[in-house]
C-alpha cells in the first residue's frame, strides 16, 4: 500500500549519507574557514604545463608527489611562476611512476635533495596517476582516510586517452576525494551512494558548471542551487546532459541513481 512504500522511500533517503564538498583549498590561507582542515591535501603533479595557481597549491599542500614527467614541469616551470630561482624550495616529497618521461638530471636533482624516488616501471598495467593514488591510499592509516583529499594537476587536456584514463581513476577509487584541476576548471566524482552538498566559493569558482553521467546513464537526478535544476531527470550521452549550467546559490545539492562527474569553472586564481 502507498503508506508502506512512502515509509520505505523515506528511510532510504534518510539513510543516504551526505557528502560535503568545498573548494576552500583554492583560497589563500588567510581566507580559509577556521574549521575546515583545508590544507589536509596531497598534491599530485602530472606531466602537463603547470596551472597558474600552482605556487599557492604547492605551498599549502600537506604532501607533494610528482608523477614521472610532472617532476620535469616543477623543475622547469616553478621558478618562472614564482620569480624564485631557488629550485631547492620546491622539492616534492615523492617522485613516483614508471620513470619513462622524467629527465635523468631532474631525477638526480630531486633524489639528491631528499625526494623519495618510487620507481614503478615494472608495472605497465596502470597509469602514473593510478600508481600515485594507489600508493597514497596504501600509505594512509585507516583513521585518516575519511579526511584525505588528493588534488591533481595536469590530468586534463593533452592526449585524450590519457585524460579518459585519469578520469577513470576517479571512478576506480570512488571512495577517495580526488579533484582534477586545470587552469579552466575542476572536476570530481559524485558517487551515487551519497547525497551531495557542494559549497561554492564564488570568489574563485563558477559560475559555469555541469554534471555528466560518463559511466552509465542516470534515470533520476535531482539538483538544487543551479540555474537549470534537474528534477528526477534522466541524463544520458546521446540525449540530455547538463552542460553550460550556472551556479545560482552558495550551495548546490545533487542526488542521483548514477555516479556523476561534477565540473565547475575556475577564475581569479594566481
Amino acid at each position, binding site marked *: 500500500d502507498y503508506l508502506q512504500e512512502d515509509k520505505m522511500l523515506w528511510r532510504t533517503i534518510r539513510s543516504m549519507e551526505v557528502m560535503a564538498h568545498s573548494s576552500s583549498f583554492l583560497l589563500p590561507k588567510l581566507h580559509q574557514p577556521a574549521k575546515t582542515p583545508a590544507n589536509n591535501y596531497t598534491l599530485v603533479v602530472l606531466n602537463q604545463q603547470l596551472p597558474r595557481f600552482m605556487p599557492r597549491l604547492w605551498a599549502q599542500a600537506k604532501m607533494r608527489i610528482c608523477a614521472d614527467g610532472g617532476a620535469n614541469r616543477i623543475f622547469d616551470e616553478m621558478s618562472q611562476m614564482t620569480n624564485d630561482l631557488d629550485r631547492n624550495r620546491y622539492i616534492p616529497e615523492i617522485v613516483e611512476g614508471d620513470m619513462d618521461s622524467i629527465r635523468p638530471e631532474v631525477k638526480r636533482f630531486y633524489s639528491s635533495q631528499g625526494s623519495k624516488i618510487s620507481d614503478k616501471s615494472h608495472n605497465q598495467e596502470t597509469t602514473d596517476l593510478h600508481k600515485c593514488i594507489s600508493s597514497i591510499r596504501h600509505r594512509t592509516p585507516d583513521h585518516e582516510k575519511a579526511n584525505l583529499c588528493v588534488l591533481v594537476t595536469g590530468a586534463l587536456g593533452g592526449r585524450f586517452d590519457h585524460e579518459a584514463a585519469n578520469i577513470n581513476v576517479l571512478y576506480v577509487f570512488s571512495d577517495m576525494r580526488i579533484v582534477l584541476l586545470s587552469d579552466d576548471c575542476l572536476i570530481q566524482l559524485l558517487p551515487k551512494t551519497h547525497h551531495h552538498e557542494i559549497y561554492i566559493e564564488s570568489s574563485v569558482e563558477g559560475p559555469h558548471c555541469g554534471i555528466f553521467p560518463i*559511466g552509465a546513464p542516470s534515470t533520476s537526478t535531482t539538483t538544487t542551487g543551479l540555474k537549470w535544476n534537474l528534477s528526477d531527470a534522466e541524463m544520458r550521452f546521446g540525449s540530455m546532459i547538463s552542460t553550460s549550467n550556472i551556479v545560482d546559490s552558495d550551495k548546490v545539492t545533487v542526488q542521483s541513481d548514477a555516479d556523476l562527474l561534477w565540473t565547475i569553472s575556475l577564475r581569479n586564481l594566481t
Partner: protein
Amino acid sequence: MPPLPTMTHSSSFLLPSSSPPAPPTGADAENAVSYAVVVLNQRLPRFAPLLWTRARLRVCADGGANRVFDGMPDLLPGEDPDEVRVRYKPDAIEGDMDSVRPEVKEYYSSLGTQIIDDSPDQDTTDLNKCISFITRNPPGPDNSNLFILVLGALGGRFDHEMGNINVLHRFSNTRIILLSDDSSIFLLPKTHSHEIHIERSVEGPHCGLIPMGAPSSSSTTTGLRWNLDNTSMNFGGLLSTSNIVEEEIVTVTSDSDLIWTISLRKHT
C-alpha cells in the same frame, strides 16, 4: 543474427596537400568525400590551414571567428596577414555572438560571411547548432559522404568538452571528427562493425577505446597491441587507453557506442 554492416574510417584528410586524400573505399567521383570544418573558440591546431583548404564549407561558432582572424595569419607567417584573412574567410558565423569581437564580425560580414545570430539555449551547444546548420546546408549533393571536422572541441572548459562529445552521440549518423593538436576522436556506433584505416605518417601509435556514457559488456578488436576479445569495458573498470596501433587497419565491434581516439604526430 545477420552480421553488422561495416563502416570504414580514414584520416586521409590530415595528409599534406601534395598527397590528395583518397576516398576511404576507393569509390568513383560520385561518392567523393566532402568536408566541412567547424571552428570553436580555442587556439587553432597547427593543421588548421590544411583542413580549411580541403573543406567546401567552413563555419565558425561565435568566438571561433576570433581564432580564425587572429590564428590563421600566425600559422602562415610567410604570407601577408590581410591576404590570409581574405582567403580564410568563413562561410558562416553562428552563435549568440557574445564572444566574437565586433570588428571581427564586421570584417567577415563585409566579405560576405553569413552571420547567424542564435540566442543561447540550454539544450543545444554552439557545436550542436553548427552541425545542424551544416546538415541543413550540405556542401555536396547530400550528407552521405560528408565529414565534419571540428577544431577546438577538446581541452578548455570541461563542460564544453563533454557537450561536444555528446554531439557525437546525438548525431551518430553523421561523420563528425573532433581534432586537437594531440588527438583525433570520433564515435564508433554499435550499429556497425568498424574498419579504421590508419595513416601512419600523421597519426598514432597511441590509441584508445572509451565507452563514454554506458558500459560495454563485449568489445572485440584486431590490429592493436592489446586487442580486446569479447572484453567488457566500463568506467570504474577497464578502459582501453595507452594502447598501440600495430596494423594499418584496426577493426572494432562492440555492443555499445565507443569513442575511438588516436594521437596525432607532432609534425602534422
